[in-house]
């Protein structure tokens, strides 16, 4: 899951990035709304966390600009302004959630999870397919109650596939959502990770969950 953090205070941006990376998200940083907007045009993000008071283009203008350009990525606004008026203005501009500084990081991650599952029908913090379960809080993966240990990158790929269960996901999409930098989509790095994942999940004695769609990408289904 790839998240864009738009924040002008470097130290705040830096600890948010660090904290979210520990939660196995891929994080990009932008210093103001204008830079942030350009980045959303070039990359596909699953969530945007944005400060409100920023130079050049503030958070409110940024969200409005996104919505005007039909970018519906969920946006979480972070701000020191805590009056009802400010919250209403923020949410009415098109943002999905609002968190006031100084915030608890635990709350931030909880809100991030809530916003990420909003587009799906999923209502708890586990993603499942057949007997495979992914606990998004504890980052624990189990198949028929046996724990499976994954590397952060493998985890990210599996999470993205699970969130798009029963849908074909292209290699390009996977690259965009699991890496926080540009990757030459001509590489076979995704295929390598998929093979590693398969070797851990789709054990020979079990039902195959990850399927290859030739020439397009991958799909996870029961």
């Amino acid at each position, binding site marked *: 899951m790839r998240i864009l953090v738009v924040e002008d205070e470097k*130290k705040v941006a830096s600890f948010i990035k*660090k904290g979210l990376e520990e939660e196995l998200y891929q994080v990009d940083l932008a210093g103001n709304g204008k830079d942030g907007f350009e980045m959303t045009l070039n990359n596909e993000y699953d969530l945007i966390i944005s400060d409100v008071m920023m130079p050049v283009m503030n958070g409110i203008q940024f969200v409005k600009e996104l919505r005007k350009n039909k970018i519906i990525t969920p946006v979480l606004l972070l701000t*020191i302004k805590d009056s009802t008026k400010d919250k209403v203005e923020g949410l009415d501009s098109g943002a999905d959630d609002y968190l006031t500084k100084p915030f608890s990081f635990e709350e931030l991650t909880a809100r991030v999870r809530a916003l990420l599952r909003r587009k799906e029908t999923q209502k708890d913090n586990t993603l499942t397919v057949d007997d495979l379960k992914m606990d998004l809080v504890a980052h624990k993966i189990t198949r028929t109650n046996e724990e499976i240990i994954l590397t952060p990158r493998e985890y990210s790929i599996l999470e993205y596939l699970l969130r798009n269960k029963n849908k074909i996901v292209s290699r390009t999409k996977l690259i965009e959502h699991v890496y926080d930098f540009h990757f030459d989509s001509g590489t076979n790095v995704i295929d390598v990770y998929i093979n590693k994942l398969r070797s851990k999940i789709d054990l020979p004695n079990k039902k195959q969950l990850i399927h290859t769609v030739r020439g397009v990408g991958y799909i996870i289904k029961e």
Partner: protein
Amino acid sequence: MFKNIKLFFTSTRFKITIWYSSLFLFLEVLLGVSIYIYLYHISHVNLDLNLKTQANAILRVVEEKHLDLDTFEPSPVYKSEDELIWDIIYDAVVFNRRNTFIEISTSQKLIYKSANLGQNHLAFPEKKSSELIFDYKNELLSNDVIRVCQLKGKRFIVIVAYPIEHIAQTLNSLIDIYIMMAPIFLIISIIGGALISTKSLSRIDAIIKKTEEITAQNLSEKIPGGGYFDEYGRLVNKMNEMIQRIKTSLDFMNQFSISAAHELKTPLTILRGEIEIALKSEKTPVHYIEVLKSNYEETIRLIKIIDNLFFISKSDNALITIDKREVELSWFLNSIIQSMGFLGREKNMDLVLDSMPKICVKFDQDLIKQALSNIIDNALKFGDENTTVLVSAEEINNSIKISIINTGPGIPDESLDKIFNRFYRVDVSRTRRTGGVGLGLSVVKSIVTLHNGTVNAESNSDSETTVNILIPKV
């Protein structure tokens, strides 16, 4: 209930009514007494005058007829003495409309007495004076005093008398009327007083009602009635002005606390976030050291913000005392520059003192140092890399002018006056990214103002920004 009654008796409306009706009653009594005294006096004077005139007229008639009773001879016209007398007297008393008592006599003999005297007889001891007016009491004639006028002619004595009774009756009925009218007057005056006070106080009631409604939440509302130019209008205007002043200072305080909270929130966000993440999972010592270093920086930033806030609120409440001591200015400036020069090293900036003569000045060295440090700090922060920050000083009349010039993006014209205001930032995040707070320059302004000086900033087209401090030499 009891409270309401007490409120009624202590109300201005009640007091005005009481004053008004008391005054009204007092005037009524005064008028009544005056009229009574005047009428009493006038009727007595008139009575005397009338009596005298009548007596005179009778006397003249009887004297002029050359009535000589001593030598009376019967004639075809007057068969007896009496006929002659009656004829004459008739002439004299025919117009006695007022029913006065009349007696005409010679020194020896009573010639005529009016019928209303009956069997009575007005007998007075002989007096030398030809004209006498006096009071006489005879219960057979009248219960009241009788006013008597006695005129003495050559041969006749005329007495005209009139009981005062009639005058007294008139005056008594006057008093009766007054006594009857008094309660009516009292009621009218109370109603009038109540009406007048209610009318004049209704605007006070409106003021009280509105004043009760106004709280800290709706200070922008106004008390009605400011359009009049009378006392109430002036009162309302003054009260509205006072509310405006309270609103201004409340707004200022609100703005101050909101801004102060905002200033404090950024470092607190960083501290909380960094610490939470450091505690979330085990990290390398290098990471912990980084977090501690950053936490230390933010702590220093918090202390600086709080110091500045504290300084400003102290200076607002006039709690700062200045301790002026004499110092040589170029030495003083040099010491500041030497202690701050290292700040420019990162951006390869020089901090230089322009050549200047020796000037002896007297100011609070700690405060002025703080002010200059804040300005120099800003000049270095916002200056371009590889440029010089120049500090210069000169004497103008009895003041010294210290200028700090840097080369950089400059300050937009519309912001030049505002940068010394609290929490004002030319560019919201430009200062934040460089770790500054919106308070430094307002501290400068407070310090300079304490020294009766001025501070201003100017930017020119060569991207040079100058901050000038002008303070008296002593």
